[in-house]
């Protein structure tokens, strides 16, 4: 579903060219659960932005569902993000003055689908275990709950893939485990997931771990040791 061919990304920094990504080639199939691991500043966020159609590669090709994304204009990229990609961020990125359900329907506002938004928000929030928090503002929710609202937002438009950037980075370990449990459930239900993290325990929840170093993929393979299974 995701197909990167020799993707490079170069930034201009004080007259110096910084190569953040170099010739990254990567395939992710339908239903996979992949972790991308790298220390900070090693290009994993840039890779995620490119995968998420928020950024375009300097060179190389990116096919999403066979469609060449690297050639698309801003409106097309917006539409792909809206219809096919769900984002989960480290700092949740909820709109502070909107209730949980109002945050969840945000992607629907920018989509052409005609559904009962509140009903849809309610059903997605229920699926992440927040049926009783529908009308709460973000500040009235715990970090774990906020991240689950963000996951609900990512899911509301039934995307092809969920991209998560350090989803447990701002959470205590219990909440982090809870979020990863939700991800595993989504994976079990067939959702494609890519999680970027520097935390090996988190990365090992996935079926496949890609490690990066200095803007290149240094290793790529199935998870050898599954971390201690999440227990309730």
């Amino acid at each position, binding site marked *: 579903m995701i197909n990167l061919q020799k993707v490079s990304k170069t930034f201009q920094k004080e007259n110096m060219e910084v190569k953040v990504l170099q010739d990254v080639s990567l395939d992710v199939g339908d239903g996979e659960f992949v972790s991308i691991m790298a220390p900070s500043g090693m290009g994993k966020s840039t890779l995620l932005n490119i995968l998420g159609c928020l950024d375009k590669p300097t060179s190389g090709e990116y096919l999403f569902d066979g469609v060449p994304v690297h050639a698309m204009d801003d409106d097309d990229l*917006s539409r792909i993000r809206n219809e096919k990609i769900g984002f989960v961020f480290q700092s949740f990125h909820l709109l502070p003055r909107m209730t949980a359900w109002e945050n969840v329907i945000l*992607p629907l506002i920018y989509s052409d689908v005609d559904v009962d938004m509140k009903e849809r928000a309610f059903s997605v929030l229920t699926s992440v275990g927040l049926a009783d928090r529908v009308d709460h503002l973000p500040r009235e929710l715990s970090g774990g709950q906020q991240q689950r609202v963000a996951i609900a937002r990512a899911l509301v438009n039934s995307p092809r893939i969920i991209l998560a950037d350090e989803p447990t980075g701002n959470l205590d370990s219990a909440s982090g485990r809870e979020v990863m449990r939700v991800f595993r459930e989504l994976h079990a239900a067939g959702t494609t997931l890519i999680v970027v993290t520097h935390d090996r325990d988190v990365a090992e929840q996935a079926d496949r771990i890609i490690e990066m170093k200095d803007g290149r993929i240094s290793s790529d393979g199935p998870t050898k040791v599954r971390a201690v299974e999440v227990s309730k």
Partner: protein
Amino acid sequence: MRVLRASKQALSAMVENKARTFLMMLGVIIGVATLTVIASSVIGARSDVMSKVQKFGLDQIMIMAGSGRKPGVPQPVPTTLRIEDAQAMVSEISNVKDAVPQINRRDFPVKFGNKSTYGVLVAADANWSDVWNTPPERGRFFSREDNARLARVAVIGRTIVKDLFESDDPVGKQILLGNNPFEVMGVLEPRGTAASGVDMDSRILIPLLTGQKRVFNQDYLFMIKIVLHDASKMSQTVEDVRALLRERHNLQPAVEDDFTIVTPTQVMNLASKVSSTFSLFLILVSAISLVVGAVVIANIMFIAVNERRSEVGIRRAVGARKRDILIQFLFEAVSVAVIGGIAGVLLGLVGLKAVAGFMKVPAVIMWQPLVLALTCAVMVGLLAGIQPARRAANLNPIDALK
């Protein structure tokens, strides 16, 4: 549908920050309020003048005794304008259909029993009622015969009726004009207040000859009003009248006119000049307020865009196009301006009442000034909002999310 949703998002942002929203509105409120007052009073005054002119008649000319006279400005009256001048105009100028010679005197004391008041005493020919388009609503107007036999009869306006008779029927009653007893034979239809501020319903009409011989003791006139056959030949007729009067008054070429000719156009111009200085000042105030309002909105919008970078980033990440962000912020600016505009219109209407009472200009509430004011508000919102909205739309979503 999408636009509608984006607009709703913008409205909720406004409600969230009421104090800031109010600050943003303030300039527009003041600007639109003053604009409403100006536009309403100018249009009101104009339509008032127009309707007065319609009643005055577009086919009519007034000839006032004395040079350089303006209606409503008191001045010594020369003794040269005569009844014979009026008769000569009708007989010698073919375009003159009718002429009413008359004498006017303001603040003339009138009494009934132990009640007294002041009115505008008008001594005129019997055709006054037709030419001034002011028929009696009760009783009758005096006739040529009444004039010829110097009858002591009067037709009075409603204000006089109210002051002297309250709700009683004045027809047939004896009143005193100065010390002369007159019989009330009719009541004039109401005509309201003139542009000059004179209450037209305080007029008391008596036959011209009666007035000359029994009240004023003078054989000259205050003015003559003439009616034309063909209004399109107005300027030619004015020249004919001038030539005739100069000849009849034996004026040498170097001597200026001892009369003043007032045409409907001059009446209109005069009335619009009165309010123009005042409205120029107000237009300046409202223009400055609107510009300041726009600058304030633009600045606060820039601040808001900066503060809401991450909101923009989030919206872009979940699929908002640049256009959606642009519309949202633009709609926000326009809504603020329009709500400010509506508040300004309401404030302006209140102000208009005050100004109207204070300046004695007619307070006419019409839709044109309101539309004008709101259009200005929308323009201010668009102009003020476009740059901040563009900046928001062009934020790089990755940077905005950091």
